[in-house]
């Protein structure tokens, strides 16, 4: 029996530095929460988070154009990874800025003072009276971001699994931390945790089966085994199917979307925006990497399966959104439909499809964060007024806020001169080019259905008379105002002049094997 010597793998720390910075900042934030005086914690946490995220963004920009395979092939920092990491860092930065909003809620914070307190209990009342602020959210968000950044660069299934868990666990906690509607929030956190654990188990079991079939966890190794036609094919197919389930769960593709509306509705709205934008990037790029790099040899098998999933996701998301009466649930179903449009880009299985999907992820994230930020502004006595009927006549009372929201909705609907149109055009063009004409037609149909419920909200806001006891639009602090303005500006900018971003994603559309 031969013993294998453990060789310390060579690690390119430069390539990993952005991830290390973010995770390091998360650890620092935990220490701050443990040792710093109460009144300084929030300030220090915000500073640490913002500095780390800006630093990570700068480091990523510096690395643009370089491809690195490191840590024995477990991590690949290539074009798609860099673009995805930059998007994740940017979305995290914006979300952290939104966390600092203290003016909207009368209690001074949008997070529960203590996640463990029973809703309506004496402890909660006391903590609220003491104006205790939740500060762990910063550390949790940074950990999630670090996990996401690792996930998009993970080149073996085990690294990917660890990254998946690192990003998921903080999100389960964050979802249950809403200050208002505590029970709903805790329910959503629990639901997300249970279903997420199932999905992780699927992923892990699939990984084991793939390893059994190919003898490798590394995507390049799997690819080699697949193209050499060695190994048990049925094991490989079942295994990859299960890995895909784990990832499709995270991007809320049908039929793994059931958690999405409940979690989106129950989570604090700023966290919902963060999840919708950043998690989608992480899981989607990981899914592309597994399929393109590891399973390029089985492309005929998975494009067929995933084009069915894509079609169903677009249709189910759009149709179910029609009957929603809660704005957050409606946006959740819309996010499901958008996962379907993204999958249309994925099944193109071409560099132009990858570029289109990356563009879509970036602009969809921007618009989503903006839309959820607007949702935080519309409030009545019970907190955010998310029932659609209470948005009636908003355009009459607050034309600017309603106008920004209308712009985001038009972008979701893919109306020209917004970024959503260019995104839809690129994914449809890529899929059409790959011969997926039927899927494009299904996409067109789903877009028409989706337009109906986006327009319904605009009808409510602008064409209906305001209810006398309706909610008011609170005046936010500068942080939220800036985020909404920037998101609206970028939604128009990438709709009118998308050239630079399209160029960037086209250059970054090749996965390194």
């Amino acid at each position, binding site marked *: 029996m031969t013993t294998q010597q453990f060789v310390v793998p060579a690690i390119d720390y430069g390539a990993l530095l952005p991830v290390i910075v973010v995770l390091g900042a998360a650890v620092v934030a935990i220490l701050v929460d443990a040792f710093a005086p109460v009144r300084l914690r929030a300030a220090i946490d915000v500073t640490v988070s913002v500095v780390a995220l800006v630093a990570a963004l700068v480091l990523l920009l510096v690395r643009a154009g370089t491809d690195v395979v490191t840590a024995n092939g477990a991590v690949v920092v290539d074009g798609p990874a860099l673009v995805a990491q930059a998007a994740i860092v940017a979305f995290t930065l914006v979300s952290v800025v939104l966390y600092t909003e203290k003016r909207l809620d009368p209690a001074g914070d949008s997070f529960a003072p203590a996640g463990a307190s029973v809703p309506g209990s004496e402890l909660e009342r006391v903590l609220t009276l003491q104006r205790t602020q939740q500060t762990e959210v910063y550390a949790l968000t940074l950990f999630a971001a670090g996990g996401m950044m690792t996930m998009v660069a993970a080149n073996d299934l085990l690294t990917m699994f660890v990254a998946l868990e690192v990003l998921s666990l903080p999100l389960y906690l964050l979802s249950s931390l809403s200050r208002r509607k505590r029970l709903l929030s805790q329910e959503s956190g629990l639901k997300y945790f249970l279903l997420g654990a199932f999905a992780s188990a699927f992923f892990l079991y699939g990984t084991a089966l793939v390893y059994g079939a190919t003898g490798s966890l590394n995507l390049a190794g799997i690819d080699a085994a697949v193209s050499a036609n060695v190994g048990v094919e049925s094991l490989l197919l079942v295994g990859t199917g299960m890995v895909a389930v784990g990832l499709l769960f995270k991007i809320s593709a049908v039929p793994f979307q059931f958690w999405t509306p409940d979690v989106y509705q129950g989570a604090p709205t700023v966290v919902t925006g963060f999840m919708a934008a950043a998690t989608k990037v992480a899981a989607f790029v990981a899914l592309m990497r597994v399929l393109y790099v590891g399973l390029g040899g089985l492309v005929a098998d998975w494009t067929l399966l995933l084009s069915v999933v894509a079609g169903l996701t677009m249709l189910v998301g759009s149709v179910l959104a029609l009957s929603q009466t809660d704005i957050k649930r409606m946006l959740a179903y819309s996010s499901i439909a958008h996962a379907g449009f993204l999958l249309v880009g994925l099944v193109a299985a071409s560099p132009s499809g990858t570029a289109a999907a990356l563009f879509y992820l970036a602009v969809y994230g921007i618009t989503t964060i903006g839309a959820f930020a607007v949702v935080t502004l519309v409030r009545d006595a019970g907190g955010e007024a998310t029932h659609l009927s209470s948005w009636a006549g908003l355009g*009459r009372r607050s*034309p600017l806020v309603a106008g920004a929201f209308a712009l985001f909705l*038009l972008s979701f*609907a893919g*109306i*020209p*001169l917004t970024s959503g*149109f*260019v995104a*839809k*055009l*690129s994914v*449809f*063009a890529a899929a*059409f*080019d790959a011969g997926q*004409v039927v899927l*494009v*037609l299904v996409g*067109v*149909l789903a*877009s*028409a259905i989706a*337009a*109906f419920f986006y*327009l*319904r909200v*605009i*009808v409510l806001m*602008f*064409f*209906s008379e305001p209810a006398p006891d309706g909610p008011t639009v609170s005046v936010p602090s500068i942080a939220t105002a800036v985020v909404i303005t920037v998101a609206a500006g970028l939604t128009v900018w990438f709709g009118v*002049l*998308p*050239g630079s971003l*399209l*160029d960037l994603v*086209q250059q970054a559309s090749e996965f390194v094997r």
Partner: protein
Amino acid sequence: MTGWLTALVLLPALGAVVTALVPGVRTAKLVAIATSLLVLALTVAVGLEFDPSGSLYQLTDQVAWVAPLGVYWSLGLSGISLALVALTAVATPLVLGAMWAEVDDTGRSIKAYYALVLVMEAMVLGAFLATDVLLFYILFEAMLVPMYFLIGMYGGEKRQYAAVKFVLYNLFGGLVMLAAVIGLYLQGAPRERTFLLSDLVALDIDEGTQMWLFVGFMIAFAIKAPLWPVHTWLPDAATEAPASQAAYLSGVVDKVGTFGMIALVLPLFPDATVSAAPWVVGLAVVSIVWAALVAIGQTDLKRIIAYASISHFGVIVLGIFALTTQATSGSTFYMVSHGLSTTALFLVVGFMISRRGSRHLGDYGGLQKPAPILAGFLLVAGLSGLAMPGMATFVSEFLVLVGTFSRYQVAAAVATVSIVLAALYILIMYQRTMTGPPTAQTASVADVRGREAALVAPLFALLLALGVVPGPLLTTITDGTTQTIAEVGVSDPSPVFAAEGAGQ
């Protein structure tokens, strides 16, 4: 001379921004009207630069817009687009004028009302001038948004329903067209693909593919035009929208649909056009007769005109797909004259509704006693609607029917019936509102004010002038249509009618 056309498109857009930002509602209204007059002046200047015997597209502007996708900001002026640009430039100031006191009592933003119409104008002008298919598509779709708000915010009782129906019909058509636009784009060689009309026309596409793409484009344009059986959004939209917007919608904006058929569908899909033409001609004839019959049965003033419009759009489509120079020129001429005539009709009906406060035919009667000039206006506008000889509409309808007859005798014969039906719905409307004894409510109605007269007078003058002297405009148009028909590759069946003599 570059930059002229870009300026023509950007000027109203800029005016819209200024209108929205200037303090004071009255100032905003004046800024908007001044902008539209500047656009008119610029249009005249551009028109003088145009050489009717020159190449198809002139005064071209072309800048790469989205380089990675091959999208260009590419504008060009053909004889056909010049006619429609001129229609837009003439109609917009009149529509803006008609809006002066229209929605003052609704409590909604008047500045936005004016700014949105200018945004519409910019997009409509852009669509008429675009020589890049994606640029055309973007404007074609984006113009739904301002119109949606114009109907939904400022319209009548059922405005929400009408606005949503309007958008959903058109958006659906647009999305189908988007799939076809992508399909067309992908016919180009990889890495050299562009959306430029000139590049796409040069492609050699097999007829089967052409037919699919043709259907994709035609669904969008048939909804926009609108053609039976996808016309039902227009009566609702036109009825619920304020009268000025109904005029703008069916008079100007919907022309983008029929323009798209001539300027894009014919040159892009020549083989499919020739094969499918009999079917489209059939639909057009159904549209003409059906809508005319329905118009006779309507009791709502705006609905009558809306259905009349659908019938006339049928005539326009009939002429386009008859594929003779004469019929196609007649159709283009009809787009202009129908724009003037429908705008006049909607504006005059709007004057009536603002006085009586009702759209219902039964609430009127004997208006010509208290308001003889108003009655005269309705009569003149109505006569232009039924294509009375001497009016521009007569020249157009005659050209279309004669041009169609040389290829499709039966279709032309059936379509001619619509002239009789038009006389019915127009004259019944006149009879029931204007003649007879005045009722208690109509006896004290005030006659036309100076401002109102000033709005419709230019329309009447143009309708008469183009009816008596159609030559110059027809020459300009025929230059464009001849080249377009030549691109389709069909030749006119003989004998060719002397076009210039049509008006006498």
